[in-house]
């Protein structure tokens, strides 16, 4: 058989990069396949202040760039391609991409997650025209303008605070009457004069001719609707795992996440999962990196047992 890697890692976010580092540092041959941008979701945040040690110069892009470099220095190979199908039925696993096929003794799935849609009318049509899922990418456009943020969790509130550096006003629209975000974030948000809140409310419709001009907001308690004028809306209402490629090849839970044991093993021998794609309680860079490390070490043990006896 042509070139067989020890480990193929699918996805180049924090989980994949950390698995690459640990794998190649153990002198294994490791390939990371990434379809979009190395660094994954972490590249979409400018405020990564909860990764230990990240006090200075710790934007998401800066941190993950360093992670990639570190893995590269230990010999991890990287390619840009999209995995479109897999075959996990034999000892040598096959990973099929748009532009080639790769083989490995073990596979680590680190495909992460993507933002869930807000679920309002014309959301898709106005994407990139005022509807955004990435404040870091698009905040610039809204200098001096009014924007809204949908959501009440850590991401929503962190990004709302970030947006106040650009926007004239930031209106947080949340379907409950209190925030889920960490207390310290809540405090910052409540004390920020540019941030307003609309509680118990959901966005039902986006309006505008080619670009966003206003949102229809519905109070879920009273049923009343109102209109707010904004040029941008940033949606942070949770995540969906990126696992459709693996359906039928490994077990997924009802939401599409991959269940693993504490060594990141899936139900298929030699196939591991790490990061946001996994069933877990805390989806962050630190836990993604930790998963990646554990998965790489478990994969190494598996390879030694299975192939080197």
């Amino acid at each position, binding site marked *: 058989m042509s070139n067989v890697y020890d480990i193929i890692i699918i996805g180049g976010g924090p989980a994949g990069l950390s698995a690459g580092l640990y794998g190649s540092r153990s002198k294994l041959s490791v390939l990371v396949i990434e379809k979009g941008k190395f660094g994954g979701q972490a590249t979409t945040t400018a405020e990564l202040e909860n990764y230990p040690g990240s006090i200075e110069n710790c934007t998401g892009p800066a941190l993950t760039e360093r992670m990639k470099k570190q893995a590269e220095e230990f010999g991890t190979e990287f390619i840009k391609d999209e995995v479109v199908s897999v075959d996990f039925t034999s000892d040598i696993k096959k990973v099929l991409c748009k532009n080639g096929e790769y083989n490995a003794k073990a596979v680590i799935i680190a495909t992460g997650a993507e933002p869930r849609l807000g679920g309002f009318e014309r959301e898709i049509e106005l994407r990139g*025209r005022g509807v*955004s899922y990435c404040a*870091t*990418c698009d905040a610039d456009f809204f200098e001096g303008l009014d924007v809204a943020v949908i959501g009440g969790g850590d991401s929503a509130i962190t990004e709302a605070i970030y947006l106040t550096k650009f926007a004239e006003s930031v209106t947080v629209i949340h379907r409950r009457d209190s925030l889920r975000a960490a207390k310290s974030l809540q405090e910052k948000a409540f004390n920020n004069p540019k941030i307003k809140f609309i509680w118990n409310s959901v966005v039902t419709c986006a309006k505008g001719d080619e670009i966003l001009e206003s949102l229809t907001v519905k109070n879920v308690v009273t049923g009343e609707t109102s209109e707010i004028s904004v040029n941008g809306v940033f949606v942070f209402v949770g995540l969906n795992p990126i696992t459709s490629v693996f359906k039928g090849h490994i077990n997924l839970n009802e939401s599409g996440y991959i269940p693993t044991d504490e060594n990141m093993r899936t139900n298929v021998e030699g196939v591991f999962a790490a990061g946001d794609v996994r069933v877990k309680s805390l989806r962050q860079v630190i836990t993604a990196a930790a998963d990646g490390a554990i998965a790489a070490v478990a994969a190494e043990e598996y390879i030694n047992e299975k192939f080197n006896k």
Partner: protein
Amino acid sequence: MIEVNKDNFEAEVLNYKEKPVFVDYWGDKCETCKQLMPDVHKLEEKYGDKIKFCSLNTSQNRRLAIAQKVLGLPTMIVYVNGEKAEVLTPDKISSAADIEEMLKKF
């Protein structure tokens, strides 16, 4: 790639008639945009004889971008005779292959 801005946008894009004009809207803080850039340069080598390639830094030309109805990054637009013929908004771009699909139409 020609770097277009508020001073030359009209001449290089809107009033240019010889071939379709591709504009890569990017920004200083858009990581996806920056990671796509080398691939876009490769696409220029491949399609440059049929399509004119431009890039526009929206961080420095915000008003111009908004006037073109661009409010999200990355956005890729092909203009024909000064009119928008194809638009790829950020959700439709997961890799350079998506951009190539659009360019193949011209």
